[in-house]
């Protein structure tokens, strides 16, 4: 197990190197010039700026400097936010995205499991239809439309009540987090609901349920002891990947709700062609995803011996 973990970690490091390299060359292929600004500057100033950011070196040298700094965890200094290290930027903005993401996953999982079970119980009856319509909306409406609409709905709601029940944008308190997290988690919730529903139906038809019924086990007991427990398993296994995709996919929600997360920051950095921030964010997110996957795999290894044997 220890060897396996070690091997996976090494693979992870190689993957991060690959991401870093791909990012570096993609970035330096981008046309445009990060040092230009509204007001043109003289040659002398330009040369100073270039040497400050090391852009006067040949590309290969820049690449090795970049790798060397990366190995010490140093992403450099931002181009637009002078005097700010990319590390600081990530440290300040990533927790926001992460909190939003975790909350979204919590909403998605809870909602998905509850709604999925409910639709299976009331299969082809009213609650099923209502929830399935919501699911269809969650699957088929683009997230930016949902986000914009829900913000509008919040304004109307607050207007109707006459006081601010839920804030329409911003970040900081529990109330600020609820709507964006719900919007962010909606797609995943719809997906999980469908998964839970079909999983429940599959379990209902299985032999052990039939056996339990024929033995005369009371319905609630069958439901809790057999149906739910077994139906939940496939849902739990897809949770890992959804956490990762939600945490890094919060751009739209962060933009619409003015949340100071890393996703929004990335979009702004791209507009400004802020090399170091773009590279730092991409590599950081890449590494984050890679090690999350490894963590999940290793944990599964502890739980499920088959995984260990396979490798």
């Amino acid at each position, binding site marked *: 197990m220890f060897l396996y973990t070690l091997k996976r970690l090494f*693979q992870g490091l190689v993957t991060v190197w690959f991401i870093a390299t791909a990012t570096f060359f*993609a970035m330096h292929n981008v046309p445009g010039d990060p040092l230009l600004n509204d007001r043109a500057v003289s040659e002398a100033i330009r040369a100073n700026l270039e040497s400050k950011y090391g852009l006067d070196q040949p590309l290969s040298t820049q690449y090795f400097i970049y790798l060397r700094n990366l190995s010490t965890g140093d992403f450099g200094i931002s181009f637009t936010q002078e005097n700010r290290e990319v590390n600081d930027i990530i440290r300040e903005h990533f927790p926001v995205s992460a909190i939003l993401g975790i909350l979204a996953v919590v909403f998605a999982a809870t909602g998905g499991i509850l709604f999925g079970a409910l639709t299976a119980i009331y299969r082809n009856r009213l609650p099923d239809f209502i929830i399935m319509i919501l699911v269809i909306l969650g699957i088929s409406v683009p997230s930016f439309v949902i986000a914009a609409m829900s913000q509008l709905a919040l304004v109307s709601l607050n207007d109707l009540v006459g006081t601010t029940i839920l804030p329409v944008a911003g970040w900081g308190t529990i109330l600020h987090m609820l709507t964006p997290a719900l919007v962010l988690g909606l797609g995943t919730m719809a997906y999980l609901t469908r998964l839970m529903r079909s999983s429940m139906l599959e379990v209902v038809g299985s032999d052990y349920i039939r056996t339990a019924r024929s033995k005369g086990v009371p319905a609630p007991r069958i439901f809790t002891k057999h149906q739910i427990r077994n139906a939940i398993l496939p849902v739990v296994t897809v949770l890992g990947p959804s956490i990762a995709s939600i945490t*890094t996919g919060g751009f739209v929600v962060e933009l619409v709700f003015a949340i100071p997360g890393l996703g929004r920051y990335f979009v702004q950095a*791209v507009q400004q062609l802020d090399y170091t921030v773009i590279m730092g964010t991409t590599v950081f997110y890449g590494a984050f995803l890679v090690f999350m996957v490894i963590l999940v795999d290793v944990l599964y290894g502890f739980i499920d011996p088959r995984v260990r044997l396979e490798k």
Partner: protein
Amino acid sequence: MSVLTPADFERIQYHQKTQNISRPSLSYWSDAWIRLKGNKRTLFSLYLIVGLLAFTILGPVFWNVDPAFQDLDQVSQAPGTSRLAIIVNDYEAWNGESDISIDALRLVDRATTMAVRLKWDTLPNASGYRVYRNIFPVGPEQAYGIPLVEYFDNTVLFFEDRLDLKPRRYYYSVVPMDDRGNLLDGYQSIAVDPIRVTTLDEARSKGLLTNESTLQAGDSINLSLHPLGTDYLGRDMLARLMEGARVSLFIGIGAPSLFILFGIFYGSVAGFIGGRVDQILMRFADFVVALPFLLFMILFKIAFGIGPGESGIFPMLVALVVLMWPATARLVRGQILQIREHGYIGASQLLGAKTNYLIFRHMLPNTLGVVLVTITFAIPSAIFIEAFLSFVGMGVAPPTPSWGSMSNEGIKNMLTSPHELILPAILISVTVLAFNLLGDGLRDALDARLRNQE
């Protein structure tokens, strides 16, 4: 024990009919098709998709309107608005002259959607004036509406409004100001109802008039028809939705088809050859999977650099293919590995089948079901990604429309002209839904395990 006679060793007669097959034999695909047809939801989704394709491909034949043409007389028009307009003479600049006597805020000439001309008399204590326009009466709150102009000069007593005039009621107010621009009491207000007008030149340039037409200023005419209304530049929504459909569906169907083709190739090579090659190929696929997807989509988008006049569809397609193939490759590889172990492959090999035959007769067709399902689910996600990129300003370049970029523009005008958001958003939703339902249906139909359920 009976005694065997030589007669027992006689060759028996060949029987023409040994077994009676009462039903036609069903291949895997025809069986799948029957079950697909039996599923109402899937059938519905198929109709939807056929309808969408017809809308995209045949639509422009029936509705042959230039999607780039700007009808500036009918900007952001909701569907079903009246098209009646009066023909007037060409616009002439106005220097504030009029022959009517002005005692208070008055309308000069007839108010039209081309211009509303106002004059007023000197107001007490005014060092200057500000003119406002509202769609509601001013009321006790003194909500004058939109400030249109301010004059820091109390001798200017006229104003001409040409800003985005619609044929509806407006309330104009003129408010006196002190010399620092603060508003004073004693405003004057009038209600004005501009009529929709157009000029002969305009009508002719839009093909509303033939050369022989005898219509003159003062006659009424019907403006161009826009069944689904117009967008913020007066372009026909229906024509633009059709053109946008071509872009969105091209990306939505093109990208998945390409990356799945590549994935099949890559995956089957890895799966079939196996060993060291397989390991290296799959390690590389792992690398690509690990790239943060949306971040790299954006990065690639700017790295490709869209030149003047280019739509940026191709770079987006390439970026999608480059980033999305590994999932299919993994899937196909897994399938091939599984199939390789099946008995019928061994049997086929024993019967002397060649490698090519094995791959094309047995392995690929058997992975096809899974691949087909993957494609149908990849299409909606590609359409979503296109829409998302448009939202963060990294989508196709204007003037090329796509449903994503159209809804992104629509969001900005959501409150005033909701149809600009709703129409493209509905099309996105319907497409995504249709392909999702089809995917579900296909999965059920192709999965033999589910044969006895639902």
